[in-house]
């Protein structure tokens, strides 16, 4: 890895690590009596490990000029492995908290093992650890190939990938120590947030620099989506995390916003995280890997445009549907609801465009579990966006809100759409990246597929049932005109569904473990010495030129 960096890049890497070490020491000293100090030690440790790596490879010969003749894929390889490791860890924690809901006594009387601390480890672990790493890894892969340009340097992709994972580790360890700013999907505290801003801006600039070097006259759809993901997430993250730390030596901070403004900012962030992290980014993935794997053209370029701008425009307004029937003024709720309804159309145009792309390749869907992962993802994308728009309608929301229906909806999206498209994309990429003929075992991919589909279906049906029962129990009155059920009664009614959900989650987790094993074994098999074709290589400067008028 270090051998691939130029001398100059190695020096810059050392400077960055030195700065990181200084920050780590300052944090550790300033926060001696606080988890902040523990995180300082963690940052210092990361800087020391990184420095050792750079120094040990410092005098290796510089990479040859011929490197510019190929795409830079090592960060993608690392990103995919990291994504799969995060998937296994975070899904394990997810199933753990699912069993914790079945039996709330499983906490060993320890603070770190309480539901409130473990749950964000699961959510951040799957969204940011698994999803984020997969997005970074595939975006590197896709942007280079669809631009026919190598990334502009070797250091930035590593800085983004490793810096991002440092953020994820700080987040997850913080939760276990009780560090949180109590905003869903934005739990990490101020210092972790600042670090992520630095990493994310570097990511954005890297993407733009690669696009600027492109040798294709047009920018492919996948890049619009990846770019929207990077740009909007930066904007959401910065605004929602504006906060004032109580001191420079403490992990705790207070939000710049208060009351209902804070709630609205949080759900503007939260819903657009769903939109631009969990939808846009993964649509970028779909738009590259699905046509590539199916060997079919995208069904309609025009539908791509309509859905891209429809999704981008409508989603921005939809966040307030998370605050129906709250202190939020009703007019804001009305806006959120109507834009959520309109959002369904471009969402289904996307899903339709994906499924129509498979026309002419359905025999491949039947035979190839990798492509089937992507097909099922598109179907779940359609189902989930329909359900989401439906649940955003105020009277529906009055039944579904605060119930397990929401949890089921989220998992239909997260398991059925996000994880499925990611597994599909990873299974497609691994043989391409490591230059193998195919995955180590097609049967294990098949097993993973059925475990994933089975797990998702069990999970989602359990939560639909439990959520609707819960919602109905909470609003049932007896003849005296008082509530017929106590909250505990509804919990007792949930118990069998919680067991079913935990079993469904276990299936899904097993699938991910099989996936990690299969990928590991694929990497360990001997490389296939297939000659690279011109299509696998970037166009060198002076190769093709942009055509006039494009």
């Amino acid at each position, binding site marked *: 890895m270090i051998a691939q960096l130029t001398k100059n890049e190695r020096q810059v890497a050392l400077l960055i690590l030195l700065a990181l070490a200084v920050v780590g020491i300052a944090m550790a000293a300033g926060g001696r009596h606080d988890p902040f100090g523990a995180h300082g030690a963690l940052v210092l440790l990361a800087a020391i490990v990184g420095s050792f790596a750079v120094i040990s490879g410092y005098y290796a010969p510089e990479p040859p000029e011929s490197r510019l003749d190929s795409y830079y894929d090592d960060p993608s390889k690392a990103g995919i492995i990291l994504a799969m490791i995060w998937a296994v860890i975070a899904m394990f924690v997810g199933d753990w908290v699912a069993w914790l809901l079945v039996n709330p006594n499983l906490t060993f009387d320890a603070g770190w093992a309480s539901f409130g601390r473990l749950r964000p480890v699961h959510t951040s672990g799957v969204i940011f650890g698994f999803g984020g790493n997969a997005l970074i890894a595939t975006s590197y892969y896709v942007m280079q190939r669809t631009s026919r340009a190598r990334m502009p340097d070797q250091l930035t992709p590593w800085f983004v990938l490793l810096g991002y994972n440092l953020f994820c580790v700080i987040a997850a360890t913080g939760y276990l120590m009780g560090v949180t700013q109590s905003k869903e999907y934005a739990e990490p505290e101020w210092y972790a947030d600042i670090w992520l801003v630095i990493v994310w801006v570097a990511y954005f600039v890297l993407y733009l620099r690669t696009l600027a070097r492109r040798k294709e006259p047009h920018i492919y759809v996948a890049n619009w989506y990846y770019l929207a993901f990077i740009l909007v997430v930066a904007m959401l993250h910065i605004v929602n995390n504006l906060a004032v730390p109580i001191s420079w030596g403490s992990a705790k901070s207070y939000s710049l916003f208060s009351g209902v403004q804070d709630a609205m900012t949080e759900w503007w962030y939260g819903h657009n995280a769903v939109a631009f992290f969990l939808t846009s980014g993964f649509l970028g993935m779909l738009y590259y890997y699905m046509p590539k794997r199916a060997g079919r053209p995208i069904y309609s370029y025009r539908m791509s445009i309509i859905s891209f701008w429809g999704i981008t425009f409508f989603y921005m307004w939809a966040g307030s549907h998370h605050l129906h029937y709250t202190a939020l003024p009703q007019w804001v709720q009305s*806006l959120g609801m109507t834009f959520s*309804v309109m959002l369904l159309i471009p969402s289904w145009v996307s899903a339709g465009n994906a499924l129509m792309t498979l026309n002419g390749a359905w025999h491949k869907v039947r035979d190839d579990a990798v492509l089937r992962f992507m097909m099922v993802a598109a179907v779940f994308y359609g189902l989930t966006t329909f359900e989401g728009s439906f649940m955003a309608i105020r009277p529906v929301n009055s039944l579904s809100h605060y119930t397990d229906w929401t949890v089921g909806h989220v998992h239909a999206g997260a398991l059925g759409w996000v994880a499925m498209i990611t597994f599909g994309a990873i299974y497609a990429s691994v043989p391409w990246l490591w230059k193998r003929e195919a995955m180590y075992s097609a049967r294990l991919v098949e097993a993973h597929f059925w475990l994933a589909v089975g797990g998702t279906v069990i999970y989602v049906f359990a939560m639909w049932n439990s959520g609707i029962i819960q919602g109905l129990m909470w609003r049932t009155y007896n003849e005296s005109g008082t509530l017929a059920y106590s909250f505990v009664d509804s919990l007792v009614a949930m118990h069998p569904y919680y067991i079913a959900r935990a079993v469904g989650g276990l299936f899904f987790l097993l699938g991910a473990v099989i996936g990690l094993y299969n990928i590991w074994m694929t990497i360990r098999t001997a490389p296939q010495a297939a000659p690279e074709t011109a299509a696998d290589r970037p166009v060198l400067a002076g190769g093709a030129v942009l055509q006039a008028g494009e």
Partner: protein
Amino acid sequence: MGKEERDPHTGYLTTGHEWNGIIELNTPVPRIIYFFLGAAFLFSLVYWVLMPTWPIGTTYTKGLLGSDQRAYVDNTIKQAALERADWTAQIEKESYADIQKNPALMNVVRETGRTLFGDNCAACHGRDAHGAKGFPNLTTQSWLWGGTPEAIAETIRVGINSAHPETRSSQMLAFGKDGMLPSADIDKVVAFVRSLSNPAAKDLPADKVAAGKMLFATNCASCHGEDAKGNPEVGAPNLTDPYWIYGGDAQSIETTVWGGRQGHMPTWESRLSTLDRKILALYLVDLRKPNP
């Protein structure tokens, strides 16, 4: 690149662009999509006209229907209170004894008391009110502070060792820890106390029990009474019945005598209405088993 070709499968032309082997068709957007986009927009437009929606300066469009979620909630709550008024007024007004004689009202108490108990009391006392270690069983005749509905309602109102200024307060002293009784004497007292509720116990030598009885009279009887049947005035439990909050085996009783006990029950005066507390007291009396 730049050459538009016809896709043999769908019959549509490509856009003529190609990225890493990916091409796109220039398929026109199906009309039905424009139709649904229009329909969704029309729905929104109608909704915007009818409901409060768009901000204008410091106010917003109120909508033709004049919908206001806060007024709606206020009205619904008033309406619901009105529908319950017939029985709420009766329960508030009538004495406990009269309510207990009224089967219709007691039906309301059972229905409503169950959910009130589930939402407010079950966390400690259990859904079935059988209690747990440290939390009394509420289905027996054995009540620390008295088992009449009036006494129960008062306990709910002020709590036990709570923050309420009129709280019921009680404390079992730490006879061992605070050096009031040597271990050997505690052993004897424990033997005597066990013999009260469990006369058939075989491991209790008569001389030890007798010695314990003497110690009990001088150290414990002031609260628990000469007959050890407790005293609801000070919240001292009856030691002759089979109900134990912290356990009735030798080990548990010894722990209690050695280290003392001071239970806690929160005050509910600011959290539950007088009506709700009255319903809960009646509910618990109704729940109580008829046996001793």
